[in-house]
């Protein structure tokens, strides 16, 4: 009830409370040994709140727990301990494939996926046009998705995803797609996309991007929050570490 009261007052969009996440896997030590269960803690006791409209960067070295944290907030994985509460439609942008079907054309894919991701009927025409114009695939737009090159397929996925309108956007290192000429356009589109997101959590290694887009930074190290505050301070703490 306490949480719901806070939600109703609109004080936070994301609340992470004492979150810990443990992965379980099987590991073999030698060729003839039996596999044993191995537990690995990726996130330990992480707590923070993000208010509506905030743009927050999650920074840290590889293996710090950035992706795991975003997956947990998106509701994709189970916390071992703690709680995450979100208030708004949460989209996780990780990679450039929103679920495209390989033997359908890009056009068919965009049509079917727009319905699956909740684009209203009256908005669908404009949405489809936006994706098609962004992709710049010409006749290849009507070819089977499996026949497109990785770069062309990436354009479709990226164009589709960044045409959606999220309330809470969790973005995981997805800003680079396609060739050099296309990259600038993609960056601009990503900026527009981020502009449409009311609340953004951006996991990135690009400190410039973090500084340009975000007002606040959360620095993770070995699954723990070591700094949470103003972005330039977060970046300098990261660099000093």
């Amino acid at each position, binding site marked *: 009830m306490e949480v*719901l009261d806070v939600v*109703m007052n609109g004080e936070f969009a994301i609340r992470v409370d004492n979150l810990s996440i443990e992965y379980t896997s*099987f590991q073999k030590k030698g060729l003839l040994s039996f596999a044993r269960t191995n537990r690995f803690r990726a996130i330990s006791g992480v707590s923070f709140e993000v208010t509506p409209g905030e743009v927050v960067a999650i920074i840290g070295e590889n293996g710090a727990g950035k992706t795991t944290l975003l997956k947990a907030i998106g509701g994709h994985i*189970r*916390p071992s301990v703690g709680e995450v509460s979100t*208030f708004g439609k949460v989209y*996780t942008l990780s990679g450039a494939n929103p679920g495209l079907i390989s033997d359908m054309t890009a056009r068919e894919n965009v049509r079917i996926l727009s319905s699956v991701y*909740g684009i209203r009927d009256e908005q669908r025409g404009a949405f489809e046009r936006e994706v098609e114009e962004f992709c710049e695939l010409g006749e290849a737009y009507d070819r089977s998705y499996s026949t497109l090159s990785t770069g062309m397929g990436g354009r479709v996925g990226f164009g589709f995803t960044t045409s959606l309108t999220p309330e809470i956007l969790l973005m995981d290192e997805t800003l680079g797609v396609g060739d050099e000429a296309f990259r600038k356009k993609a960056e601009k589109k990503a900026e527009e996309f981020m502009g449409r997101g009311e609340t953004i959590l951006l996991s990135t290694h690009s400190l410039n991007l973090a500084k340009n887009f975000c007002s606040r930074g959360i620095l993770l190290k070995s699954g723990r929050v070591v700094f949470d505050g103003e972005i330039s301070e977060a970046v300098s703490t990261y660099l000093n570490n």
Partner: protein
Amino acid sequence: MTKVMMMHKDYRSITPEGCFDRPADSKEAWSLDTKRARFIVKKKFRGLAGSRRLGQLWLALDPLFLGLVYYFVFTVIRHKTDPVSVFIGITYIRILQNALKSGYSVMPDFTGGLKIERVRTRAVILSEYLIGLFNSFFMCLGIGIIFILIFNVGIVEAVLFWLLGLLTYYFWYALGNVLSPLSIIVPDTKPIVSYFGTLMLFGSPALYTLSETSGIHRTINLYNPVSFCVEPARAAILGTTDYKLLSIEVAYVLLLILSILVIINILRFDKIRWRFSTWS
């Protein structure tokens, strides 16, 4: 609580116990979930067809070809076997194998690749049961058409043949899914599913009728769920009377077990999906 329902944004609470959604518009959320379930089914069947020219038709052709192979083998070995009888048995065994495998494999991704937004478990459950419906339909389709065109079987009997196939699918799918945590905790049990499928092929009255069994083999088959689908189908299509060997009380118990398994499957699906989301 009432105030929360009046809000215009989705609320989600994620804990070790589960991922609890309170959509702002529950009607719209349900509509989205049914669209997502349909998408997952479509993607699954398109994936099964792969790049093969005959596409999904292979689902219907598979039990047909396998039936032909066993019919050939059995006529050579035993000099007498009714092809229709073998086709019925083989179809149900293929459905059993397919269902058990689907239920027992806890997939890392049930969602057909929809990664941007979490797909609610009710959409996944709906898709799994729709997949069962279409899978059993396609697997009965090829042989059903041959029954109607060549062996003059009526439409009603052909539909009954499919409905019994559907029951077979749901029984073995639900059983497999209820046991599926074992497949993650002890992955070595995965091959047992295919061994069990082979055992059922030769042990159940699929390639022969129930009256051809004897002793302990007969006793086991009097409680084997496969017998309760195969023999009534043979009775409807061929007019055989082997189904009379089966007890109606056991049939009721099996129906009760089926219902319980399906209920447990639906209730536990989310827990299993959630629990193993951090296992690899």
